[in-house]
């Protein structure tokens, strides 16, 4: 638990701490100076921005929530949300890189690794010297991890890992992979374990870059594991506990996706506010027409609501309190809002919204991943429903 979120005041308090404000302002300055310029070009070239990631690492933003003794920033998830929102305001692809790197591969190691694994693997990840890729999804299985086909079969003091993972963020630029595989294929989810694998080991191969609708400068590939020899000490967490840890990692990851969604929605809102003040039709700014004003007011209200849901989930995590239901609610609401807000922003921009000279068409393409990645909206509703039934039906 970090100190920056521990408020002295009891009860509800909506004010950010001085430290949180400083973090938000610093990342905002960073984004204005380094991220906003060139964002359209990066979307078009679809190249991974190694230089920006290096700069973010120098500023300490590639491992904010991890402990300082392992090279991290030692701040809480509320601060993390502030940073992700600021980056996503302009560049959702970059925010996705930071969020997935921090919460998934690094997050799983921070959660389940032993001390020597943390020293060896978490430290360079948290410092941003190395990039992490988390390998759960397969062509035939996503949130239903029990259908996983990848296997890790014990042979002497090694595991032999075989399988294909798909939609892997940082799949080709990643250095450290956390891979979920069945160690006991007959035991369903109880037979799943996690392993830390180094990208340059024999048998680890990144497949071709996937052409996507959006999130273009984030790296998404297949990763193929063929007879990869994994030393026993690279088993991450307990044998057969990989699925349980995965659920926890996903809960954590959804905080980042929520914050990212808020960032996209805020971008859509701010661009719409700007445009509707400048664009004049029938003698007045279109923002003075009630039809446009209504759209903007609705988005603004929902952006605030989404941010509060996301911050509450982050706060609960920092307090070590259960947050599975709350983070699914936050991710569900924020991601669907991102799609809605980006759609409205394109509508408000009219013809200009449909062309790449303006930012909002990119927001629209990027936003759609939010309702899909780290559990679709449908899966979030399943989780919320399951948690509600637990609470009320026992």
């Amino acid at each position, binding site marked *: 638990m970090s100190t920056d979120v521990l408020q002295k005041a009891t009860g509800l308090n909506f004010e950010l701490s*001085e*430290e949180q*404000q*400083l*973090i938000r*302002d*610093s990342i905002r*300055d*960073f984004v204005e*100076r380094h991220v906003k310029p060139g964002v359209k070009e990066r979307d078009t070239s679809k190249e991974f921005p190694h230089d920006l990631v290096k700069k973010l690492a*120098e*500023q*300490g*933003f590639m491992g*904010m929530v991890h402990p*300082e003794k392992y090279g991290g*920033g*030692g*701040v809480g998830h509320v601060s993390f949300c502030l940073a992700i929102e600021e980056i996503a305001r302009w560049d959702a692809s970059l925010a996705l890189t930071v969020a997935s790197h921090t919460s998934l591969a690094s997050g799983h190691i921070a959660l389940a690794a032993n001390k020597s694994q943390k020293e060896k693997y978490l430290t360079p990840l948290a410092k941003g010297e190395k990039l992490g890729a988390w390998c759960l999804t397969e062509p035939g299985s996503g949130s239903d991890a029990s259908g996983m086909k990848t296997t890790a079969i014990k042979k002497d003091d090694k595991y032999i890992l075989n399988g294909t993972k798909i939609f892997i963020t940082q799949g080709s630029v990643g250095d450290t992979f956390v891979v979920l595989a069945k160690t006991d294929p007959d035991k369903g989810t109880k037979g799943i374990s996690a392993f830390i694998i180094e990208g340059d080991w024999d048998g680890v191969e990144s497949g071709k870059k996937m052409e996507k609708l959006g999130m273009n400068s984030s790296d998404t590939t297949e990763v193929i594991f063929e007879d990869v020899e994994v030393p026993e000490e690279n088993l991450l967490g307990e044998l057969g506990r990989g699925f349980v840890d995965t659920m926890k990692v996903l809960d954590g990851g959804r905080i980042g996706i929520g914050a990212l969604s808020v960032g996209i929605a805020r971008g859509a809102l701010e661009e719409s506010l700007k445009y509707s003040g400048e664009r004049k039709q029938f003698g007045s700014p279109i923002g003075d027409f009630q039809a446009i004003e209504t759209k903007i007011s609705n988005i603004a209200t929902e952006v605030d609501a989404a941010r509060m849901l996301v911050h509450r989930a982050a706060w609960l995590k920092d307090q070590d309190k259960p947050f599975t239901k709350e983070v699914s609610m936050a991710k569900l609401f924020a991601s669907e809002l991102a799609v809605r807000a980006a759609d409205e922003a394109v509508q408000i921009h009219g013809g200009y919204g449909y062309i790449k000279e303006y930012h909002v068409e990119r927001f629209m393409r990027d936003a759609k991943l939010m309702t899909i990645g780290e559990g679709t909206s449908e899966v979030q509703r399943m989780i919320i429903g399951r948690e509600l039934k637990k609470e009320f039906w026992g």
Partner: protein
Amino acid sequence: MKFYVCIKQVPDVDAPIQIKNGDLMQDTDRMVLNAYDASAVEEALVLTEEHGGEVEVVLVGPDKAKETIRKALAMGADKATHITTEDDVDYDSAVYANILATFFKDKEYDVISCGKQSQDTDAGLAGGMIAQHLDLPYATNAVGLSIEDDNLIAKRQGDSGQEIIELPQPCLVTCSNDMNEPRIPSLKGIMQSKRKPMETTALSDMNLDESALSAKTKVTGYMEKPEREPGQKFEGEPDELAQKVANLLDEEENVI
């Protein structure tokens, strides 16, 4: 070397300005470190990184201004002094200069620096006034600083060239924002800033007499910029339009 940098908290210039009944409405949630002072902090950090020494920032302002001190500490300043005032004071440059000069009277330093002006008033007076009070050699509007044989070398930008001024230390210099690009605090810097020494002195404990704290000038009101009158629009065929414009320039405006 010991660097003192005077910093000020000012309203964010990106925030929309509102004037109501001759008063300036300020959004107190949007207060920032004066950009010129940020350049002064940056340059002090660069020089002490190169030559050794320490950077201390000094701020005169209300309690809320502590967040601005935190920012300077997060950038890398070693320590800070906060001279606290009431929330609503209408000090002019002369008062700020009196307070700061009193603070510096018994201090030892090599260089005092500050922004060439602050973004809220754009007065640009405090630096010179402090130097006057302390009888220090001083230079204004520097775009570059360096140290040579115990002298501070200040570079000033002119229209057609640069002026290089040598100042024996101790001295005072005011900094342009063209000097550098102030660093953005890193997360590590932000976390370390909490542990850096920040001394708080109440202005009321500094024993300044009433005249030193009375503004010599007073802002009597604020007015919005008058709206520009719309220009004339002409419609018609190109040769007609050209004729009309030519006539206008020739006969009414006497330009041709």
